């Protein structure tokens, strides 16, 4: 553990102090070495968000290094390792973010094999790199940070390409299939363990307890059986307009103390996307529905689609200074928006989340970016009981500042 921390610190110092011409190591387009590091501060009022954020936390960082090697004009190898810390999770443990072999037969057809980013919506493939987006947090309705590990990357492959339609523009497509290898120390994992034990405790105190259920479990795991999907981004002959659609389906099997206890299946998850830029203004909007079914101990605990959408407007006041306004809305159950899903009475959940966010971004130069933002939220959907064991507030706020470096 100590050695790992020392390694991270040395890597960070090496990255930050290296002179620019040396840091971005390019050799005739054949070999390229790049990286990034970011450090943030997260604070909230009313509820804990992603960590014990009430009172603020500096445990909010990422660091990564990637290497690309071009063997021929068509064949490339690339990989990125990274570590992150969000509250008590991540712990700056080094992991493979993506790593692949890429062969592009033609502009319209290529294949990538290995650990490949999942192309969900406009921004999922770059959610590890803070400096690539206008705001620190992506809209949570579509890019839920608590399930980051679920939708980040898959071991398998994808077919991709760009098809020119001449006067009608062009489109990029990706078709992918693979499996997700879940991290054992994710916030989602620990939250799931806590939720299962809460259900088992509820069973013991119910009027008619199921005698076949255990009173408590010590560990839980989930294996991904499959994941497949497609992503299509159409660029019509209108400058800087992109229209997209993404589709994903996947299935997990859940285990408690090495015994199968249920399944989680994404029957269909689709996202419609729109991005339009006009001079210094950029508009992004996405709408998605995730139709999922969860069974636990032979009981269907959830079955149906959620509903998520957002609109984000970003303005570049100067080449370096930008402002963003976000409205982000999420409903846990598209067809039932009135009741609390957690009916046990312990968890005062509202099944919605409506988030107004205001952000500022300043690019000091090509390598350094600082950002700040504040969010005003109505609703506690997507918040984890795990971080809020005494219940949640309906109206709450959160904010963050973050500095990022990349080379």
């Amino acid at each position, binding site marked *: 553990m100590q050695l790992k921390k020392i390694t991270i610190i040395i890597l960070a110092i090496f990255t930050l102090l290296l002179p620019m011409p040396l840091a971005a190591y390019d050799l005739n387009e054949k070999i390229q070495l790049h990286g990034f590091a970011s450090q943030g501060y997260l604070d909230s009022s009313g509820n804990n968000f992603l960590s014990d954020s009430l009172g603020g936390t500096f445990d909010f960082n990422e660091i990564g290094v990637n290497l690309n090697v071009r063997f021929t004009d068509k064949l490339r190898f690339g990989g990125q390792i990274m570590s992150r810390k969000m509250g008590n999770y991540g712990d700056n443990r080094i992991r493979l973010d*993506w790593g692949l072999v890429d062969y592009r037969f033609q*502009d319209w057809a290529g294949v990538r094999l290995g650990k490949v980013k999942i192309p969900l919506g406009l921004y999922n*493939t770059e959610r590890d790199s803070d400096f690539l987006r206008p705001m620190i947090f992506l809209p949570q309705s579509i890019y839920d940070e608590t399930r980051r590990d679920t939708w980040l990357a898959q071991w398998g492959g994808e077919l991709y390409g760009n098809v020119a339609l001449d006067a009608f523009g062009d489109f990029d497509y990706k078709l992918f299939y693979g499996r997700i290898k879940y991290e054992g120390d994710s916030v989602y994992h620990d939250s799931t363990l806590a939720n299962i034990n809460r259900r088992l405790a509820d069973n013991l105190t119910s009027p008619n307890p199921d005698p076949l259920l255990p009173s408590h479990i010590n560990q839980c795991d989930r294996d991904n059986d499959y994941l497949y999907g497609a992503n299509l981004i159409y660029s019509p002959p209108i400058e800087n307009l992109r229209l997209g659609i993404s589709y994903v389906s996947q299935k997990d099997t859940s285990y408690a103390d090495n015994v199968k206890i249920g399944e989680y299946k994404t029957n269909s998850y689709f996202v419609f996307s729109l991005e339009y830029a006009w001079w210094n203004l950029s508009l992004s909007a996405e709408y998605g529905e995730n139709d999922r079914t969860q069974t636990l101990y032979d009981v269907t605990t959830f079955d149906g689609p959620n509903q998520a959408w957002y609109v984000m407007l970003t303005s570049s006041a*100067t080449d370096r200074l930008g402002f963003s306004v976000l409205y982000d809305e999420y409903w846990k159950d598209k067809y039932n928006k009135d009741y609390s899903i957690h009916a046990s009475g312990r968890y005062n959940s509202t099944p919605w989340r409506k988030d107004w966010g205001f952000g500022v971004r300043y690019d000091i130069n090509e390598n350094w970016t600082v950002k700040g933002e504040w969010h005003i939220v109505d609703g506690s959907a997507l918040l984890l009981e795990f971080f809020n064991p005494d219940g949640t507030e309906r109206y709450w706020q959160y904010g963050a500042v973050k500095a990022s470096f990349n080379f």
Partner: protein
Amino acid sequence: MLLLLLMLYGAPGSCLAAEIILVVNHDNPLTGITWRAAERIFLSKKTEWTQGEHIHVVVNNEPEVYASFCRDILKKTSLQYLLYRKKMLFNGSGIPPRVMNNDEEVKDFVASAKDAIGFIRQESLDSRVKLLVIR
């Protein structure tokens, strides 16, 4: 209101105004391409010339030239194109075009690489490279 004013600040007219042209190697048989094809080349969507060779793209990072190219050819801000290229690197989708510091470096590179393309100021055009007209 203050936020709205700040967001609308930064008018398009404040951009720099260098006349930008595309240049290729003299051995390249093409004399012109469509604006759409030029855009796809610099966005790394089109990677091969019609004759089949891999396109070697070079980005001119001299601020005035770069800003004019982004605005006039790609219809993007400088930051938007910079982030577009960085996304390729950091999400694993590819290696972005190589970057050079000024017109002279671009011309030297294009003159030495048969399948290269770059952009320079119109007044910098000389016999080392060939103009590629955008139709």
